[in-house]
């Protein structure tokens, strides 16, 4: 895959430099450029939310830093965790006196580094709580749900947590509502083509011209099955059925739906997928409260898509509807 880049080693810092130049009213940084924070951080009296993870997933992670969502983000190299001291720097900078919640995807390196950061933050008397995102049903069976990866569903977690904090929720309340949200969020994806990590210079995996991988992770981790490319309706049905079996919504339930593109798949195709997902939900007497169709969590130029379902109660629906404004996500 051809890339529009300079020196591959500068990929992340140049991307961040561009981002800060494009959104000076919304974003700033602390310590080094990998520590991105809201321009108005710290927001005094508000529970602060931090995330972090590898680069290459825009808008995830740092694209959700802004009003009504996150306060800061530690930015790693492509597909690799940022370091604990970068996370600590973000934590200190965004703390508005009410504690900090870490919300991020369940990946080994990230978990260990955020845990280290949390331990260090304690020395500075900053109460830190952690909520792990593990929404990818393809990555482990229900009995081992705590092993699951975090993928596009984390955007719903950011949204709900951000709204609760924005509305003045306490540290406990923000953690509780985010965990409740995540208990009701499931995602599954399909990949059609690999992507290339700039420093590696070659595709993350190979896949036949007529193949797809069902359940692949957003770094190209193996999924459930490699098979012949199917029609949009069949793909939508595969993903949606797997999620519904795991989530077990009841007739009459209200859902938010996200059809997320992994990078190279055009919005036209995402809407063709959404069409089938919506038909399936309607057939089961499930209603759609809000639909998100677009690129919310990507793998650079990977072709493919994921479906996320989020079962709502009244509070979760209200928090999802709350306005937000970040460089990549504006909701009115």
């Amino acid at each position, binding site marked *: 895959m051809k890339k529009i880049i300079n020196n591959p080693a500068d990929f992340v810092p140049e991307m961040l430099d561009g981002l800060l130049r494009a959104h000076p009213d919304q974003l700033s940084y602390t310590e080094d450029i990998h520590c991105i924070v809201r321009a108005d951080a710290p927001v005094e009296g508000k529970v602060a939310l931090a995330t972090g993870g590898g680069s290459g997933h825009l808008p995830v992670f740092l694209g959700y830093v802004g009003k009504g969502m996150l306060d800061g983000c530690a930015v790693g190299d492509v597909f690799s965790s940022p370091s604990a001291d970068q996370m600590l720097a973000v934590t200190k900078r965004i703390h508005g006196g009410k504690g900090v919640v870490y919300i991020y995807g369940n990946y080994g*390196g990230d978990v260990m580094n955020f845990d280290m950061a949390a331990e260090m933050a304690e020395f500075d008397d900053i109460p830190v709580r952690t909520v792990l995102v593990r929404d990818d049903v393809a990555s482990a069976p229900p009995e081992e749900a705590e092993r699951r990866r975090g993928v596009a569903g984390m955007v719903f977690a950011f949204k709900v947590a951000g709204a609760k904090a924005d509305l003045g929720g306490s540290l406990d309340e923000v953690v509780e509502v985010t965990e409740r949200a995540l208990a009701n969020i499931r995602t599954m994806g399909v990949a059609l083509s690999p992507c290339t990590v700039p420093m590696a210079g070659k595709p993350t995996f190979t896949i036949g011209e007529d193949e797809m991988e069902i359940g692949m992770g957003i770094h190209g981790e193996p999924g459930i099955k490699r098979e012949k490319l199917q029609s949009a309706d069949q793909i939508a049905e595969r993903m949606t059925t797997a999620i519904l079996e795991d989530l077990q919504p009841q007739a009459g339930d209200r859902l938010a739906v996200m059809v997320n593109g992994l990078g190279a798949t055009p919005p036209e195709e995402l809407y063709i997928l959404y069409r089938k997902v919506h038909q399936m939900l309607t057939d089961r007497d499930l209603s759609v409260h809000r639909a998100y169709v677009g690129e919310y969590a990507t793998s650079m130029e990977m072709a493919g898509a994921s479906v996320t379902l989020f079962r709502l109660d009244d509070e979760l629906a209200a928090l999802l509807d709350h306005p937000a404004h970040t460089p990549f996500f504006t909701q009115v």
Partner: protein
Amino acid sequence: MAETISGDAVAQALRRVCAALIEQSDYLTSLDQALGDGDMGITMAKLANGLLEYLETASLDDLGKFLLGAGMAANRAAPSTMGTLTATGLMRAGREVKGKSQLSPQDLAAMFQAADQGMQERGKAKPGDKTIIDALHPAAQAFAAAVQEGASLQEAGQRALAAAREGLEKVTPLRSKVGRASWVGERTQGKVDPGCAMFVLVLETLNEGS
């Protein structure tokens, strides 16, 4: 006859390990490609370069502080799973020898065990999960036992290496239970865990030099 290890010897040993990691980068990457995301060689080389840079200016007066700083430099250079675990190991080992400028075999044994325990706490992997712990834990135990029995450092090192190799081989037929490799499922059976292989390489390098 009590052996002592100087700060310079510690720094030298670290340099040799770094050189080995850089040299074996492609080998480690190829192991991680079969089982994970194929970055372990790259990140361990980054870590080694970070440590080598740290070594250029770090003071050896307090080996505890020295190792703590080494751990932080390692984490900054390579915050991957293995990099972070390595950083944790270095920091925990440093905590054991705060203020010391020379180390005894007992110190080494304590450092080794502290690293093992710290890395288990950090990564939450248990023996049998098919991670670096399966080579590290038996090696730390064997090293401590040898020191306890009054064996020479060289002998203790050999026994640690043997235990690490045995640990690696014991888990190779198993399925990886934690980390990225766990998502690969059954396809991990029969494949060497990259973390174990890396740790065996580290011990081999340390033994060669001693």
